[in-house]
């Protein structure tokens, strides 16, 4: 599926880098470093390795930028390079990918009840992830954490879009069950 090039906000920057503006690549790195670093945390669960991973991914992306044809968004292509690099590193290190453990995300907007509900939902999400074969867990993570669309996940992981949809749907159903309590409190109904 080819997207219109005008819809990819990164295409002008990519074009500049390809025409020789190496320093322009730093802008792309800064834009996506948190994303790739966060993906690295899934694979390695420690910040140093995730940093090394992110650097390697961006160097790889720079080297392969000439092969980027704009058939997907640059961000999707970047995630694909990162995902496969992470998978290959994990295979060599025999580590599994999952949501990062032991990393708390402080959110001051949430009260204790909401925090509890979110924690429960997070547990439910991990439970849903645990039910899936390892290869498909990334679909859920990319959908919920990285906000990627079904098509983009399919392109980044080479998993058929129907499979992505069905796994995300099942995870959503599990989440719905887990979130029912907090929703009931919000509307004053039992569920």
């Amino acid at each position, binding site marked *: 599926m080819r997207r219109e090039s005008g819809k990819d906000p990164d295409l002008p920057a990519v074009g500049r880098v*390809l025409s020789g503006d190496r320093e322009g690549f730093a802008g792309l*790195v*800064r834009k996506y470093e*948190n994303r790739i*670093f966060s993906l690295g945390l899934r694979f390695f669960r420690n910040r140093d390795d995730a940093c090394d991973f992110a650097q390697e991914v961006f160097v790889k992306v720079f080297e392969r930028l*000439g092969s980027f044809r704009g058939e997907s968004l640059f961000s999707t292509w970047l995630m694909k390079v990162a995902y496969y690099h992470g998978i290959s590193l994990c295979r060599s290190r025999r580590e599994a990918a999952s949501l990062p453990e032991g990393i708390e995300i402080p959110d001051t907007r949430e009260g204790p009840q909401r925090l509890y509900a*979110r924690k429960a939902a997070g547990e439910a999400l991990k439970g849903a992830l645990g039910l899936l074969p390892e290869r498909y867990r990334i679909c859920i993570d990319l959908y919920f954490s990285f906000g990627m669309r079904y098509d983009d996940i399919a392109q980044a992981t080479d998993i058929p879009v129907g499979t992505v949809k069905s796994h995300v749907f099942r995870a959503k159903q599990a989440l*719905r069950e887990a979130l029912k309590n907090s929703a009931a409190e*919000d509307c004053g*109904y039992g569920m």
Partner: protein
Amino acid sequence: MECEEIMERFLELDNGEGLPGEIAGHLETCPRCAAQVAAFARFTESCAAYADFAPQRDIAAGVMARIARAGEEDSPWESDLPLSMVNWIGSGLVLLVGMLLIPFSGMLQQLVRDMPSLGIALPIALGLIIAIYAALFTGSHIETLSRFLRLR
């Protein structure tokens, strides 16, 4: 039953997809479903934080340093070649002019009269020289050429 159908349809929606009118209309009249959708939205919003961890190192600086190092090590075609692009083109032009002037050489005309087969062999040999030169030039500037063609 209607609530279940509406929630099923809601769960099928993709990221960034707007609520269809039918679902939006139902949520306005059903506080229970509206609360579930709101709880879901809050959860997915909080999930985004899982993709936004900040690295403690300056990734961009590290990447640019590695790219610069790799550029120095891996670009012998650009930095270490004895002939630059200008020299390649200059040498090629001299070669071409030399070939074009060959037919005007009195010695060559004498040789062709003595050995008629030279009249056939010489253009073939010159053609081969041009082909080899062009192949060497293209091969040693393949990256520059592909970048040029892509930009067009």
